[in-house]
């Protein structure tokens, strides 16, 4: 079906005019040449108030000071780069993107990332400044060597996930004018800290006291005809959340699951330990109460890793309030490696 030129013009006008939507409900458009009062509106000018301060010429922008040459790379430099313009056909190797910082190469995966420490700093759970005797001064502090937590990353980064070398992969032609500033130097990753060189000073292993408290209690109860003693009143207020967290953090620092099988990493074990009042664990009391998620063999491996964590980090005593000993004499720890499986 053909349409007339007028119809086409009307359609075209309707499709381009901004009032097209409003004209849908109107009757047929007036023929061309008729009085078209609306045409007068074509001379409408924008209300003056709609252009506030449009005629006020802004003051000229101050000339920006040239950026520091060592600042972040800019697309356009105000000053010519030091590099001489290359020849017309010479390809220039430029990084396509600014290089990303390399991931930490630490082989140790821990909940909190730790930056590499100085090479001669001993690895410890906490960072301590070095204290050295000052010549000519009265020394009251015990000299101690500086310590720092072991370098750690939060997750395993495979070779495939590691960012590629920042070396350019293409050689674009130079622009008409040298516009690219000198690329910022790539951050050089610090060498990983050797972590295995400094042995911990030996702390003599605790031996249970000759008169174990619970044994005395049992003996007293038996002598008094009471059988097994039962809790009668709380010994001190409950541990605060902070105190519990401190104990949890202390244990998890030594809970190394790096040598566990996949099945053991899917096994949750509940371990009980009785503590000495010195806040050190009674090694002979450590037992596995239950396990879930794996075979008995896997549970045994998981339990042994948990036991090592308790013994190793309890070797110097946990940070526990002595006045609340009654609250932490017996501890049940659930070692759930679910989050460690996806590291």
């Amino acid at each position: 079906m053909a349409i007339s030129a007028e119809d086409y013009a009307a359609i075209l006008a309707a499709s381009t005019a901004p009032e097209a939507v409003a004209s849908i409900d109107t009757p047929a458009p007036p023929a061309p040449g008729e009085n078209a009062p609306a045409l007068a509106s074509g001379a409408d000018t924008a209300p003056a108030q709609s252009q506030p301060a449009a005629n006020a010429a802004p003051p000229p922008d101050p000339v920006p000071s040239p950026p520091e040459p060592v600042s972040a790379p800019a697309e356009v430099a105000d000053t010519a780069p030091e590099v001489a313009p290359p020849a017309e056909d010479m390809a220039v190797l430029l990084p396509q993107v600014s290089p990303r910082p390399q991931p930490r190469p630490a082989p140790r995966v821990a909940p909190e990332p730790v930056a590499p420490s100085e090479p001669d700093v001993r690895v410890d759970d906490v960072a301590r400044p070095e204290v050295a005797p000052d010549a000519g001064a009265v020394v009251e502090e015990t000299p101690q060597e500086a310590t720092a937590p072991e370098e750690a990353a939060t997750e395993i980064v495979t070779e495939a996930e590691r960012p590629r070398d920042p070396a350019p992969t293409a050689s674009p032609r130079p622009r008409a004018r040298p516009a690219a500033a000198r690329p910022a130097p790539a951050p050089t990753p610090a060498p990983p800290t050797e972590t295995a060189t400094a042995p911990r000073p030996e702390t003599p292993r605790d031996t249970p006291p000759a008169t174990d408290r619970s044994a005395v209690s049992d003996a007293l109860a038996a002598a008094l005809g009471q059988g097994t003693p039962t809790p009668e009143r709380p010994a001190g207020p409950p541990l605060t959340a902070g105190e519990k967290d401190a104990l949890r953090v202390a244990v998890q620092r030594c809970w190394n699951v790096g040598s566990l099988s996949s099945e053991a990493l899917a096994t949750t074990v509940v371990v009980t330990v009785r503590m000495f009042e010195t806040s050190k664990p009674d090694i002979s009391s450590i037992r596995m109460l239950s396990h879930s998620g794996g075979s008995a063999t896997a549970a045994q491996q998981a339990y042994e890793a948990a036991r090592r964590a308790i013994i190793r980090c309890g070797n110097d005593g946990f940070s526990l309030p002595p006045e609340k000993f009654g609250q932490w004499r017996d501890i049940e720890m659930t070692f759930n490696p679910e989050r460690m499986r996806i590291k």
Partner: protein
Amino acid sequence: MMRSLLTLLAALMIWAVPAMAQQGGPLRLEITEGVIEPMPVAVPDFVADTPAAQELARNIARVIAADLTGTGLFREIPAAAHISRITSFESPVQFSDWRAINAQALVTGAVNVDGAGRVIARFRIHDVFAGQELGQGQQLVGDRDGWRRIAHKVADQVYARITGEGGYFDSRVVFVSESGPKDQRAKRLAIMDYDGANVQFLTDESSIVIAPRFSPTGDRVLYTSYETGFPHIYLLDVTSMGRRALPTLEGTMAFAPRFSPDGRTVLYSLSQGGNTDLYSMDILSGASTRLTTAPSIETAPSYSPDGRQIVFESDRSGTPQLYVMDAGGGEARRISFGAGRYGTPVWSPRGDLVAFTKQSKGRFHIGVMRVDGSEERLLTASFLDEGPTWAPNGRVIMFTRETQGAQGEARLYSVDITGRNLRQVATPGGASDPSWGPLQN
């Protein structure tokens, strides 16, 4: 006297009562965050029961330590840091000395050479911080020439006892040894211990050989040879070095063979009339069964450990992707959906993962995914990585990495399935197409 005792008793009661009280049961904590790092282990030289065993005692301990540290799961504490010296296998261990140097596990042992020249090795594994032995002490006997196998077996026991999964040290790898310039490279089959020791060549350089595959028992090898000008599959007995060609139709090309888990059947690709499909062959009878009939290219098949399924590579969707189907054929389901081209899938001995080669954005990767295609994880990235093969315990993958350029060379590498511990395997020269055999008896 009586008064003193009563006073003491009263004091004890006052002291003991608070200790008894722990209302609400024990303090309960949940530990969900730990660390992942190599376990420090001490492997002092084994004690030599006789002067003739002195060198063996030292060498066996060194191989054990190398096996353990090579996994990336253990870190050896150097002998220079040891406080205690193990001078007698029977003497009690001074655990405090080993705790002082943060050794978490300790391996002690003794070696003897009897009148018949047999090597007898005894060993124990200790949990240092628990102050107790892990399991029972064991004894291994072998030929003097097989002392490395004795060391590998000890390391397997240590690895299994501490990690809870089987070891892989007493195993061998068959591969293609490469020599010469890239455009005239000579290739021959070779076999070696998993760590690159004891290399033996199985074929000469007269013809090109590719893709050797160990049998499940490690006594036979399938491989593809071009000695007739066309690729044909051969079966080689590793012990007798006898070999025979598997029967295929005239004018066809057979390649990419792989044993079934029971060693009786061979999966392979057959190219005929421009089309490549999968076939299975009964080794004894030589009878073949066609498994796929698609007009696309189907190749690189690999059985699941139970022999019920096959994972293979096909370009039926337009690009090479991974598919799984029943061992007898039938409808296949696609399991790879990432961007890129997938190939050379190999089912894990554990049955839970499939290793593969992936090409994406101009790089090659070795990766793993669940058998349903989920949880894809790329472990490596380089100019050319390909051809993964699983360690017997399903924890480690070995593959070929080739470097770029005219001087580029193929080498073997291994990587843990977590993506850690990427290492080059020592080989005398260029090496490619590894196939990891089972643990030896």
